[in-house]
């Protein structure tokens, strides 16, 4: 007698009146959920395999399908959720570490949704973005504190290397191996068209993408995959990955089956061999060691590229950022605890790290208090879901933001959080060619360009509404924000007042 403890969370509901038995849903589902029953002469579904990615729903020509939350339920219990119980079933059965993907979905406060934006009225008129030019360009890199003059009393304009962004949004690091070639191509192509940057993630840079060098940030993570002098030269900036929001403090592991021929060529490890990124860089055990790596990279690339250090938002983030700012980094990228990932242990994704809003505010404040805010630019991520989040992040002190989950959603991702299975039906988080072929890079690029252009227009509208006509005037401008439903302490850390004040 088989005892099935794990029941499906979702059901596939098919309107048999609409279904025309075209079998497209059977063909398209990589998990084998939908199938044609010859006896009944009808399409049926095995919901136990469904990951709720909506591929079948989206491609059904008669809109016959929908995925609903199963009505099968445990007795109501505010302490023990369905997930808490089933995860114990799973671990009791297998003895395994629970593996998940994408970002923390649990009910913690989302501070972006408790912050409101100002608008000008009466005394300080708003600016009409249709009439006035709005400057969305920004530069990331070390800035000088003072203006210096040469012997002829001309201003010395030579600065440390800067990255020019047409709009303060970049695509965050997602490795080739965790996402597909076509997904990378879409990101690279869109970054070029938009005048912004995309990030290689820790999987190295595929040779086909060297053409996008001017818009590429190359990442050096603890595994140093694909890191050779040409790789470093190919980036406009180099990012040292010390941690990421989804899994602070631990390393990464890309299973051997995802190391296909092309992935292995880019990472420069044999096909089928697992790619392990150790927990700390085993040569960086102190801030002095980090400074050494920063300068090693600067020396190797002749001081031509800004160095970014990416960290996860954790406790004492202010002190950590202060150390990094003093160790020679040009830009600090902070990844909040909601950040996404291709695979991470469930408990780490859901319980480790702190919100980006609080981290960003406290880092900006700490660096300003120490008089070193000009030494680094700040990039925030984990999670930025809309143009409103971008405005709020800039006003809290960010110089720019990274978007990753939002970018994948623009490519078709439905946040089913099953990337770690490697069978993404949208062709994004998979190395299976028949699946990744579904993502057309031309279309993907267009979707990303559309998204960022739409956000650009919205940002200009909101800026105009505030009476601001340049990103520089919005940066760190906390007076443009008010909190709502926040405690004294939260308001204090964010450095903003309550709505009504």
């Amino acid at each position: 007698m088989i005892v099935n403890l794990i029941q499906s969370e979702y059901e596939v509901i098919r309107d048999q009146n609409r279904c025309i038995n075209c079998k497209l849903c059977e063909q398209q589902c990589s998990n084998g959920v939908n199938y044609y029953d010859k006896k009944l002469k009808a399409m049926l579904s095995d919901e136990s395999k469904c990951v709720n990615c909506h591929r079948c729903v989206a491609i059904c020509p008669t809109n016959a399908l929908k995925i609903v939350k199963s009505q099968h339920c445990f007795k109501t219990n505010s302490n023990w959720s369905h997930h808490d119980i089933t995860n114990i079933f799973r671990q009791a059965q297998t003895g395994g570490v629970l593996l998940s993907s994408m970002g923390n979905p649990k009910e913690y406060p989302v501070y972006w949704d408790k912050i409101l934006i100002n608008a000008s009225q009466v005394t300080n008129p708003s600016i009409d973005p249709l009439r006035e030019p709005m400057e969305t360009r920004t530069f990331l890199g070390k800035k000088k504190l003072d203006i210096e003059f040469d012997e002829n009393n001309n201003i010395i304009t030579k600065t440390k290397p800067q990255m020019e962004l047409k709009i303060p949004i970049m695509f965050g690091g997602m490795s080739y191996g965790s996402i597909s070639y076509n997904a990378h191509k879409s990101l690279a192509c869109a970054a070029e068209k938009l005048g912004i940057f995309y990030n290689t993630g820790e999987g190295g840079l595929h040779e086909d993408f060297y053409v996008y060098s001017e818009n590429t940030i190359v990442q050096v993570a603890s595994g140093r995959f694909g890191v050779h002098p040409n790789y470093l030269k190919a980036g406009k900036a180099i990012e040292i990955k010390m941690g990421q929001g989804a899994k602070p403090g631990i390393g990464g592991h890309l299973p051997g089956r995802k190391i296909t021929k092309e992935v292995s060529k880019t990472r420069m490890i044999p096909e089928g061999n697992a790619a392990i990124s150790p927990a700390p860089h085993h040569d960086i055990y102190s801030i002095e060691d980090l400074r050494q790596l920063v300068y090693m990279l600067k020396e190797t690339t002749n001081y031509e590229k800004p160095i970014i250090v990416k960290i996860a938002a954790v406790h004492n983030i202010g002190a950590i950022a202060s150390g990094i700012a003093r160790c020679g980094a040009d830009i600090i990228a902070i990844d909040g605890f909601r950040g996404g990932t291709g695979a991470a242990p469930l408990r780490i994704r859901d319980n480790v790290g702190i919100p980006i809003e609080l981290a960003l505010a406290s880092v900006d404040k700490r660096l300003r208090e120490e008089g070193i805010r000009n030494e680094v630019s700040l990039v925030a991520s984990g999670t930025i879901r809309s143009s409103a989040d971008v405005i709020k992040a800039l006003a809290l002190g960010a110089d720019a933001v990274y978007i990753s989950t939002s970018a994948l959603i623009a490519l078709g991702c439905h946040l089913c959080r099953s990337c770690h299975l490697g069978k993404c039906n949208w062709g994004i988080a998979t190395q299976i060619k028949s699946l990744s072929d579904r993502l057309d890079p031309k279309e993907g690029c267009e979707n990303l360009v559309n998204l960022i252009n739409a956000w650009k227009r919205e940002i200009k509208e909101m800026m105009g509404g505030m009476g601001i006509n340049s990103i520089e005037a919005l940066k760190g401008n906390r007076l443009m924000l008010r909190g709502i439903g926040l405690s004294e302490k939260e308001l204090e850390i964010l450095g903003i007042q309550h709505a009504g004040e």
Partner: protein
Amino acid sequence: MKKLTVNHMSFKQLNSLIRESSDNVFELDDVHGQRFIAAGMKNKKITIKGIPGNALGACLDLGSRIYVKNDCQDATGDTMNEGEIIICGNCGDTAGYSMRGGKLFIKESAGYRAGIHMKAYKNEKPSIIIGDTAGSFLGEYLAGGTIVVLGLNQNGKCPVGNFCGTGMHGGQIILRTDELPNDLPKQVVTRKAKKEDLESIKEIINQFCDEFSFDKNTIYNANFYILEPNSTIPYRQHYTTI
């Protein structure tokens, strides 16, 4: 050939001089711990008298050769891509971290964490040869390439420290010793070297001997053990997908 007396020159100035020079061969005299010498260097050769600082030859590239007449410090050959680094003495910690090609020869001993996460791919086969001993954590997370420790002054005693080969999932560690370390992880298998094994490293061992004038017969006339990974997924955590 360009001769430079380094003295207390800043590393930035020294490395800039080497980079921008049209010369391809350098002799650096009186080196006082300057860091990052030859970082990313391509097609140039440097001889160093004195003690170079950390990260010597980091990201070293094709056609380069560094010859140090004394000891060197930490992070030598960090993420080295190609080329040769020859040290006529000891080296500090984390030598050859993430090395992906080229040769790192150390006449005497290496510190902790040598050869971590070295990788090999197709024709890129990095190798580290250490004349005497290596400290703990040798070859941690080894993904490819060859590490040889000869124990020349050990009289057959184990020439490596603790935690050798932890997380090893590729490549080989070859020890010239009568005694294996007694704390090898279960993911590492050991066996006595066969003739074919020694044949495969003959070329680099011979070059090592020539560089430091060691007697080849003394070296080969000893016990050699091969340490290899047990499977390609050593730290394979047992995962349950949700």
